[in-house]
């Protein structure tokens, strides 16, 4: 699993909202009320899952994310509550899909 770092000076993306198009990261945790978090987990946003930022609506919001074999659109404010793993090491679920 390679973690793309487009520029050496750029800090690692801390949340889903900071991922650029085509970039990916490993989800650490979801910082949202439990019913929303539960729904997102059912869609594949599980801790340890690899998430790739795909295209977005014109203007950049909402954005589409590729996770567990499907594409899910989230608004920026939601995406910023999905925290990425700092070291970018894939978890157990990353290679299942």
């Amino acid at each position: 699993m390679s973690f793309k770092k487009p520029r050496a000076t750029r800090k690692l993306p801390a949340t889903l909202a900071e991922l650029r198009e085509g970039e990916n990261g490993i989800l650490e945790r979801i910082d949202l009320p439990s019913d929303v978090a539960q729904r997102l987990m059912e869609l594949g946003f599980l801790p340890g899952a690899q998430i790739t930022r795909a295209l977005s609506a014109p203007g950049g919001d909402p954005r589409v994310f590729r996770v567990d074999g499907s594409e899910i659109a989230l608004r920026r404010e939601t995406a910023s509550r999905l925290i990425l793993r700092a070291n970018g090491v894939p978890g157990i679920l990353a290679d299942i899909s």
Partner: protein
Amino acid sequence: MSGCHDCDNCPAASGPSFHPNSPAPHVVALVGPPNSGKSTLFNRLTGLRQKVANFPGVTVEHHVGRAKTTGTREVVLVDLPGVYSLNPRSEDEQVTRDVLAGGMDGVPKPDSILLILDCTNLARHLVLAAPILALKLPTLIILNMADDLASRGGEVDTAALASQLGAPVALVSAAKGDGVEKVLQFIEGTAQGHGAALKSPLIQLPVLQDVPKCRQWAGQVGAGAAYKAPEPPLWTRRLDSVFLHPVAGVAVFIVVIVAVFQTIFTGAKPLMDGLQNLVQTSGVWMLKAVPDSILMSLLVNGIWKGVGSVIVFLPQILLLFLFIGFLEDSGYLARAALIADRTMAKFGLQGKSFIPLLSAYACAVPAIMSTRTIENKRDRLATIMIAPFMTCSARLPVYTLIIAAFIKERPLLGPFLGTQAGAMLGLYVLGFVAAIVTARLLKSSVLKSEKTAFVLEMPPYRMPTWRSLGLRLYDRAKIFLRRAGTVILAVAIVLWVLLNLPLHNGKPPAITDSYAGAIGHSIEPVIKPLGFNWKIGIGLISSIAAREVIVGTLGTIYGMESSEHPEGLQHSLQSEMTQGGAIALLIFFAFAMQCMSTIAVVRRETGGWRWPAIQFSYMTFLAYAGGFVTNQLVHSGIM
């Protein structure tokens, strides 16, 4: 029962008297995540032998149908809403759970389950298998989209998967019809009682509330069945790079919306004119064929004209639904919702409100039903509350009549836009502005909601099938005609009676002396400030049933056959109404909630009279105030 081989044992052929103990129908539930192709398979299995039904007490709609089986026992299929899990958080999940547990009134506990999964995304979809298998009912695991899996280079060992899960597995392509016979075999087998009892899964089922554990279990099961995920959908990626392009995407979006409008207004016109002519000529023919009598007048002037004036809208509504059906089945609708989300958010709404509001330009009733896709209750309610402001097709006959009679045609924007088309456009804008202002008001007060997540799955693009589009239109036409045959029919009859009673010397009275006239006169003081006379009053009351009814009513009242001499009705309106009153009438219709069907559907969807009552009062107030102000402005020469 065309494929029935054994007529002696067939309950449909021999009747219940031969089989006093004829077995209760075998009930099969269809369960699956959204976008798994559940409805396509359901349509395959039932064809036209299905109906839409609502579970008692909840707003979740479902389809029930009879399977095309050849066995002796009737098989009833219940298509449940698409769910990702059985953890009851949304109404859909609660309903699915209740039905499967046999705890839903009016729906018998299912005897077996068809679990439909999208095998191009098997690992994630298998998560739903855990809670379903835990129910211990005979279950067939259906791996749908087999054609997609194969063409994109994916693989799965169905025999291995069956032994992993302890349940039979069928690889199916519902869209193409491949493998459907295996599903029918399973249904027939379980209906005859030799149902496959579930074996225990090789890997023990996880704790169902623990989503990560369930997903891990699904991954292990998939690996045990040598599941190889398919390559990413290339065509979807290619199409998205256009449809979600910052510039091209917006252009396509606008072209699609314009095309929808152009089709439902211009494209539907010849069809609507044709239907209109048919209703008219047949009415005239009926009047000529049979001697003049009271009964004939009721039949032709009351019923035929009243119901006919509504049936004329059928082509327009069907065309709109053909469009929306195509967009939805192809997968573009999710992209449209994505593109519209930011704009809708400015009015406190969200992308998923966009489609219902677009449909509301044809008719608010199906629009309000389609708000069910909005999970957030308050967003959904706000969308329901503003949908009737959109200029539905029933307003068009009223607008056309008044504009043609009172707005002089002059060029407004050179040769492109005249004053009449401009007035029509202005009324569309007016309705839209009223809707977004109302949405803003609601969302910043009573329906203020916590910022909830906007989660929208982008399904891969697929070619819609004629079969499923056809079934949708068939459904819509049935619902629409049922309305024309009940509500509109009843109003037409009541109106005719009120206009023709009390009898004077055995003859119908002059309109001013009829019961309808008395009603019109009694409300005249209230509507006079708007510039309406008592005849318009009768029209307003009759149009509470449906807006377009006022055209027929005024036609009858002014003693004209409006449909035969449209210029005649225009002429009498011109001599009876002031300019102020006429424009006030347009404004009144832009705002007022003159539609019983909409009121009824809002009551059903919101589960009580509270919201429809608020909505009706609010819209009537706006209509009255708007009409009043307009009339006064025109009179004082400001407008």
